[in-house]
C-alpha cells in the first residue's frame, strides 16, 4: 500500500487533496456527491467576523478555460459558523479548515481567536489575497510589510497550524512567501485568483458589478505552477498548491513542482466528484510508478 498521507507542522492529512475555499461551501453542500471523509481536508468558505452580503449580481463571468468571480466574501459571519455549521462538521473525519478574512489586522486577530476556541478546527488558512473586497483582502498580500504585519499579529494568538494564502498578483511571490515564513507561518497556500476583467462589447459595460474579479480555473494553471515551484525553492515550510487543477495529472504536476498538498477549486463546479477522483488518481500513479509515499513526489522535478 502506498502512503498518501502528508503532514503540515504536526497536522496529519490522510491524503494531499483538499477542497479550496469558496468552492465547496462548508463541505456539506457537496456531501451528496462525495464522501467527505475521503478528502485530505476541506477549506471552508471565507469567513469574516461579521456577516457580509458580498457584492452585487452579476458576480461571475465565464472566460476561456476559466472564470471570473466577484463574490466578495459573502458569509453569515463567525457566530453563525460556530452555532450552525461547526456542530455539523466537527465530527466528520477530515480536516475542516477555516479560511480567515478581515478588513483590518484587528479583525483578523479577533476572528482567529474565536476560531481558536473550536477544538475540531485543526488549522486556519489566513486569506491575505482576496481580490474582491474593497478593504483588506489582497491589499495585505501584495507587499511584504503588510503581509508580515497580519501574520505576526495572528501568529501571536494562534498556536495551531497557520497556513497563509498568497496572492499571485505580485512581481515576486517568493519574497512574500519568505516574509510570512519569517513571521512564523507554518505553510503557504497558493495561488488565490488573478485580478481580471471582462467587458461586454455590446453594452460596453463590465460584466461584473465590481468591474474586476478573480480569475480561476485551468487558464491560470501554468502561472500557478510556476509560482509554486518558485516558492518551493524559496522557503522551508510546506507549500499547498492550487490554480486550475482539474484532474490527478494536474495535481501530480503541482506536487512535482514542490507542493506538499493541493487544493481543488473551480473544478468542483464542473464536477464535484473530481477531488475524490484525484485522490484515486494519485494513488494509482504512485502504484504504477512504484513510489512508496506521496511525499516523495514533492519537489521531485528533474531539472
Amino acid at each position, binding site marked *: 500500500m502506498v502512503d498518501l498521507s502528508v503532514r503540515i507542522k504536526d497536522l496529519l492529512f490522510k491524503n494531499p487533496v483538499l477542497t479550496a475555499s469558496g468552492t465547496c461551501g462548508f463541505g456539506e453542500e457537496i456531501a451528496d456527491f462525495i464522501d467527505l471523509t475521503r478528502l485530505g481536508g476541506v477549506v471552508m468558505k471565507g469567513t469574516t467576523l461579521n456577516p457580509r452580503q458580498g457584492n452585487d449580481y452579476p458576480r461571475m463571468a*465565464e472566460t476561456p478555460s476559466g472564470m471570473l468571480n466577484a463574490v466578495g466574501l459573502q458569509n453569515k459571519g463567525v457566530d453563525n459558523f460556530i452555532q450552525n455549521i461547526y456542530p455539523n462538521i466537527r465530527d466528520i473525519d477530515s480536516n475542516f479548515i477555516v479560511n480567515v478574512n478581515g478588513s483590518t489586522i484587528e479583525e483578523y486577530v479577533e476572528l482567529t481567536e474565536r476560531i481558536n476556541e473550536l477544538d475540531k478546527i485543526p488549522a486556519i488558512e489566513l486569506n491575505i489575497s482576496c481580490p474582491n473586497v474593497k478593504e483588506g483582502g489582497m491589499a495585505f498580500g501584495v507587499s511584504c510589510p503588510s503581509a508580515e504585519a497580519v501574520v505576526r499579529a495572528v501568529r501571536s494568538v494562534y498556536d495551531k497550524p497557520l497556513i497563509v494564502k498568497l496572492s499571485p498578483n505580485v512581481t515576486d511571490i517568493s519574497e512574500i512567501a519568505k516574509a510570512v515564513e519569517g513571521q512564523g507561518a507554518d505553510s503557504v497556500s497558493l495561488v488565490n485568483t488573478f485580478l481580471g476583467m471582462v467587458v461586454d462589447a455590446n453594452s460596453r459595460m463590465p460584466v461584473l458589478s465590481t468591474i474586476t474579479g478573480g480569475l480561476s480555473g485551468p487558464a491560470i494553471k501554468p502561472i500557478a505552477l510556476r509560482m509554486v515551484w518558485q516558492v518551493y525553492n524559496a522557503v522551508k515550510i510546506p507549500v499547498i498548491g492550487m490554480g486550475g487543477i482539474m484532474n490527478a495529472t494536474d495535481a501530480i504536476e503541482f506536487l512535482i513542482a514542490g507542493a506538499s498538498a493541493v487544493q481543488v477549486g473551480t473544478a468542483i*463546479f464542473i464536477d464535484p*466528484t473530481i477531488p475524490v477522483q484525484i485522490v484515486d488518481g494519485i494513488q494509482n500513479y504512485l502504484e504504477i510508478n512504484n513510489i512508496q509515499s506521496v511525499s516523495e513526489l514533492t519537489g521531485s522535478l528533474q531539472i
Partner: protein
Amino acid sequence: MKKTVQELLLVENTQLNHDNFKLVLQASTPLPEMFPGQFVNVEIKKATEIFLRRPFSILDVDYSNNTFSLLVKILGRGSKVLTTYQAGDKISVIFPLGSRFTFPKENDQVLLVGGGSGVAPMLFLAKTCGLKPENVHVLIGARSIRDHVDVESYKPYGNYYFTTEDGSLGEKGFVTHHPVFSDQLGSFDKIYTCGPDLMMKAVAKAAAEKQVFCEASLENMMACGFGVCLCCVEKTVDGNQCVCTDGPVFNINKLTW
C-alpha cells in the same frame, strides 16, 4: 432527492423551430423524482472554450424509461453546440437541482406565463400539477410565430393562449396584453412564471397589485448550480440568496423587484 453527476445517453434530439430543440436524456438507473421548476446542469464538451456547465429546466420526465427531456433554445455558444449533439452521444449532467413550484390546491385556477427559454418549466408544471385541464391556463409569449414552440402534446393538460410581438400568432403584443392576463388576472388563485426578466417582472408586478399568489423561476447565471460558488445570487428580502439552491423558484414577495 440526492444530487448526482451522471453520464447520460442522448436518445433524441428534435429540432422544434429555428432555434429550439428538444433533447431527451436517458439514465442507466432509475431517476429520482423530479418536479417542475427544477433544473439540471449540462456539460458541453464538444466545443473549444466552453468551460462551465449550462443549466436547463426539466421539461418532462418519463420514469418508466429513465428519461427526461430539456427544451434548449439557442442563445449563445454553449446552447448552440449542445443542439448539435446526436442520439447516441453521452452527456454529463448534474441533477436534480433547485427548488420546485408550489403545487396548486385542488380546484385552484392557475395561470402559467412562459416566454423564451422559460417555456419548459411551464409545460412541465401544466402537465404534472394535478389540476383538471379546465383549471390550467397557460399563456405563452414569443417574438413571432417562428419563435413559437409547438405545444400540441401538452394541450390535454390545459388551455393555451399565445401572444406574439408581431401578431403572427395569437394576440399581438406582450403576455401582459393578453385578455386572460389583463382582464382576468384577479380570478386566478395562483400565477407561475418563467422567462425573460422583463416579462417576469411585469407579471410579478401585476400579480402583486391584484394580490395573487405568484411564483417566478429565475435564470440567473450560474457557475456550479448546487450552492457552493455563491455566484447566482438574487437580492431577496432575506438578503442575497442562491438561485440554484434557494431557488430557482421564488415567491415574488421574497424578491426585491
